């Protein structure tokens, strides 16, 4: 008998006295989810992100590139990684000065892994949304914006649209129907990488980005 059949056989041989009902997760969140408006959600998200050393800048469709370029200049960034074919990446590429080299993630990782690990200062990706409760950014990497963009470069810019912020993880995954189709890799990111493995002392920049910068983009005309 295969290991699989043996294990399943042993589990099935056990008679269960109780057959618990499906837990009422929806009921719990209906009662406990925060009832907050957009302004309150933004404030909660900001505060949760800032608790873990994340810079949050409120921007508009008109000025986000200017803000990113200013931060890049102030931090002395020289090479920034953008997606292969994204409107926000292309928009940045059009405006970038000569001092900021644009690198596009166009090739499979095998072709240029060394350059990604050693020759890129920062990256820009778009968030699918965010979770206010915990300050988590939702990223669903795509062929245009692959997984390693949010992991390898030392600084990670995330462009987040203010109208995509959910109250909590449960409301995000139910509102967007995640259970009906998840991508190869889905991520929640809250802050730059960190560790407290040496004598419980918090240190940032463990294996992933050392810095996380969120450009929180409000719709055109909205008060910032």
């Amino acid at each position, binding site marked *: 008998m295969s290991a699989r059949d043996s294990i399943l056989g042993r589990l099935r041989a056990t008679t269960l006295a109780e057959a618990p009902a499906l837990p009422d997760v929806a009921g719990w969140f209906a009662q406990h989810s925060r009832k907050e408006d957009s302004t309150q959600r933004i404030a909660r998200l900001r505060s949760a992100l800032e608790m873990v050393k994340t810079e949050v800048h409120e921007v508009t469709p008109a000025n986000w590139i200017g803000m990113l370029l200013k931060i890049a200049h102030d931090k002395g960034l020289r090479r920034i990684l953008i997606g292969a074919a994204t409107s926000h990446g292309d928009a940045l590429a059009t405006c970038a000065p000569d001092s900021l080299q644009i690198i596009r993630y166009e090739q499979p990782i095998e072709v240029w892994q060394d350059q990604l690990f050693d020759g890129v200062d920062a990256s820009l990706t778009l968030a699918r949304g965010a979770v206010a409760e915990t300050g988590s950014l939702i990223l669903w990497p795509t062929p245009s914006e692959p997984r390693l963009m949010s992991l390898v470069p030392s600084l990670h810019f995330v462009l987040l649209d203010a109208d995509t912020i959910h109250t909590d993880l449960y409301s995000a995954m139910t509102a967007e129907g995640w259970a009906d189709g998840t991508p190869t890799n889905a991520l*929640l990111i809250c802050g730059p990488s960190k560790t407290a493995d040496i004598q419980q002392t918090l240190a940032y920049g463990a294996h992933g980005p050392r810095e996380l910068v969120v450009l929180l983009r409000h719709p055109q005309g909205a008060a910032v």
Partner: protein
Amino acid sequence: MSKVIAINPTQDFKDRSRQVLNNPAQRKNFRGAMDFLQAKRRSQFQDQDELQGLRELGSQIRRYSLAHLPRLLEQLESNLTARGVQVHWAQTPDEANAIALEIARRVDAKRIIKGKSMVSEEIGFNHAMQAAGIEAFESDMGEYIVQLAGEAPSHIIMPAIHKTKQEIAQLFADEVPGVTYTEDVDALIQIGRKVLRRKFAEADVGLSGVNFAVAETGTLCLVENEGNGRMCTTVPKVHIAITGIEKVVEKLDHLPPLLSLLTRSATGQPVTTYVNMINGPRQPGEKDGPQEVHLILLDNGRTQAYADVELRATLQCIRCGACMNHCPVYARIGGHAYGTTYPGPIGAIVSPHMLGLGSTYPLAFASTLCGACNEVCPVKIPITDILVRLRNEAQARPENQGVPLRGRGTARRTTVSAAWRVWSQMYSKQGLYKLASWFMSRGRALSPSEQGAWTRSRTPLVPAPKRLRDLLKDLPE
């Protein structure tokens, strides 16, 4: 990486405990670390009603998942397979290592980079790979430190919790080429980062654990702060995930309450830096991610626990470590004294299924039964009830009825059992009790001065010169 400390099953448990108890510096480390983790957790659960409600929900989800375990495992397998993940089943650590080794050999792997996985510790993965000539390198900072020191983790969440920064500074200076002694934690972490970045890029296979596997979507969910878990599961061309069969839940929406309980209970964080949900290998058109993803589902005694309605609760565990952080015994002796992969209260109740009661029963006795573990357990495992049950099983007749339990009756001693039988008779029959207490008070001078463990640090027990019955008789009317 040739240094290896063999952690023996628990025959020497008492000796190791005494060693730590006699080491004030180490006790101070543990106390400080436990106080820190307790305070962090407390700060996350200010609202008692929310905490109790969430624990109940978490417990319901885990009990529901276990009740439907065989079905959920098949559903998980079928959904993962549909997404291109190869699912393997292993009954023993040897089988699990053989599966991993076969995969590694097929892709001609020389180096395996590892994210944090307690199950890989449980099966002795690193040693098995080394024996086959394949390097297995730990990438979690705590695990990296512990591996560099040739030790085993002493805590399931904070592997190097037993080490001070001075010790780690010395270790890095001694073991990492080109490093000079520094106690600056940021600098130490950057040293680790630099060494390990190269390892991620060079590795052929990435190994990780799994925090939750979701059956309905075929999702492997991993939580972490460092980013090494994402590196291990994204950079190498092959990703092998290994987990115990109990980690499966049915619905994707079972994750939010469990994730919240896990990170808040473990390290007092509302969420970890990364929640990584993996649904398959690299798809056509995608530019990174592993070409192959494998999942190894390990039994290693879990089906034994499953077979018993009371012991099954052991499998509800989500491995947060809160029980050890709040355990007065763990806080004093630390993780290594237990001698098992999983230390603390959860280790005491889960290890007997992996290793047998024969070598692990002393752990069930290493508890004051104060119940702190029960109170903080995010999925409400009745840990002390299970400890008492295991004590009884260790001293039961081996041929006892009930579900098979490896090592049942190991601690049974005919003399002890006979003494308790006499005690039980004496205390349940009035005439016998009267007679025996008369003899004991008269013969108190014959009480032995050496009374085993009791007299190691206490004065001997001696019956009172007069029985209560006699005192009452002498009382003036």
